[in-house]
């Protein structure tokens, strides 16, 4: 929606990819169990990363471990004391995903006896653990005057719910100030009618394609061609196939309000797929570990690419790109501290305690 409104989006090639519980729509929560002594382990029960916190470099080491034959990767807790495991169960099975205990129980997966199998998720745009999103300044303003963005969809990395609430407060105060000084904008009645027709078009057809199958196909192509390691030739195939799906949109059908919702969401997913491919092709280097690992451009090139990449719709409606300088750090960071990101792999694998 922000893209179509003309806002610039930052660093979309910095995908977010998560280590989730295999077959379950939820994180294994290594950062919840970490303080209690749980950790991410390979199939030998050994640690292989220094820090379980989600990042592109962490995901790169996760992926390498899978490639090496040491997979699957697990969340290991079976070495902990009974009262510690009970406490972990109480937290994990009642908070973020309350059905988690039910999922494990059905498979007989007891943390006391077996570790939790994890796997790599699909790609996504989300600043939660990456750096992608609608570009905003320190007041949460996008590049469109009067349009604000907060939360995981804004380019404010690693700020989560607390950050979203604080940023929402900042955005609200700034937006109120902005609104006090402008009148309601005039709008084009013709544009409104055309947009209404576009939105409702799937409800006017009874023969054609369903939102479910069009979404499934789009997602399948994303998984087949856009997932890292990113290969230029594969991403170009994806772009051609996405264009075919776009042509099929005039066959999209919705038989009730629920299907209309899914039809609109499917079109948004297709937009995101196109943006993921275009942004990834624009940045001709590798950066952020697994998130932007380009096989054809394996090196990090600070000389040309230590910058934000901005994706936007140009005046002809085409997806375009430009570079944007990175603002100076507010708090200086030592070079040694910056390098920690690239030293996540455990030097000498240790036996599990």
């Amino acid at each position, binding site marked *: 929606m922000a893209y179509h409104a003309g806002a610039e989006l930052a660093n979309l090639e910095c995908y977010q990819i998560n280590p989730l519980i295999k077959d*379950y729509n939820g994180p294994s929560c290594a950062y919840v169990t970490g303080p209690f002594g749980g950790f991410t382990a390979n199939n030998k029960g050994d640690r292989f990363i220094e820090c379980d916190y989600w990042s592109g470099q962490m995901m790169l080491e996760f992926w390498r471990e899978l490639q090496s034959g040491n997979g699957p990767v697990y969340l290991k807790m079976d070495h902990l004391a009974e009262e510690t495991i009970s406490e972990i169960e109480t937290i994990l099975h009642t908070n973020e*995903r*309350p059905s988690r205990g*039910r*999922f494990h129980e*059905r498979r007989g997966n007891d943390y006391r006896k077996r570790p939790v199998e994890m796997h790599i998720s699909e790609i996504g745009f989300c600043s939660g653990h990456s750096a992608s999103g609608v570009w905003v300044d320190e007041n949460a303003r996008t590049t469109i005057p009067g349009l604000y963005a907060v939360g995981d969809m804004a380019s404010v990395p690693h700020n989560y719910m607390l950050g979203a609430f604080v940023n929402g407060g900042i955005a609200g105060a700034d937006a109120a100030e902005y609104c006090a000084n402008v009148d309601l904008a005039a709008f084009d009645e013709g544009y409104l009618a055309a947009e209404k027709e576009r939105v409702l078009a799937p409800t006017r057809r009874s023969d054609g*394609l369903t939102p479910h199958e069009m979404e499934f196909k789009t997602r399948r192509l994303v998984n087949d061609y856009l997932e890292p390691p990113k290969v230029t030739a594969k991403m170009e195939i994806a772009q051609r196939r996405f264009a075919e799906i776009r042509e099929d949109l005039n066959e999209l059908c919705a038989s009730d309000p629920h299907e209309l919702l899914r039809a609109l969401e499917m079109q948004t997913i297709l937009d995101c797929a196109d943006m993921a491919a275009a942004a990834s092709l624009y940045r001709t280097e590798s950066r952020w570990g697994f998130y932007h690992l380009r096989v054809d451009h394996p090196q990090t090139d600070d000389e040309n690419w230590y910058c934000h990449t901005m994706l936007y719709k140009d005046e002809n409606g085409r997806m375009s790109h430009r570079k944007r300088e990175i603002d100076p750090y507010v708090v200086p960071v030592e070079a040694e501290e910056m390098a920690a990101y690239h030293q996540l792999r455990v030097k000498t694998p240790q036996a599990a305690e």
Partner: protein
Amino acid sequence: MPIITQSKSAAVVIDDAKCIAEKGCTVCVDVCPLDILAIDEGRKKAFMKYDECWYCMPCEADCPTGAVKVNIPYLLR
């Protein structure tokens, strides 16, 4: 192309004996973030209409009579 329908197993199960939709209750329908539950207008009971459950469980937790049970969908069990 003509559109067909296909049978699916419903992971969210409603106990009709406990469901009070006939009294106007729509709690499970209202709290579902995926919009997959509905009231059967003939039987006046809630049911899972779309196979898109994320098993997040507010429907089960908020049902005033304990009529809703969320199962992990078969493909993910």
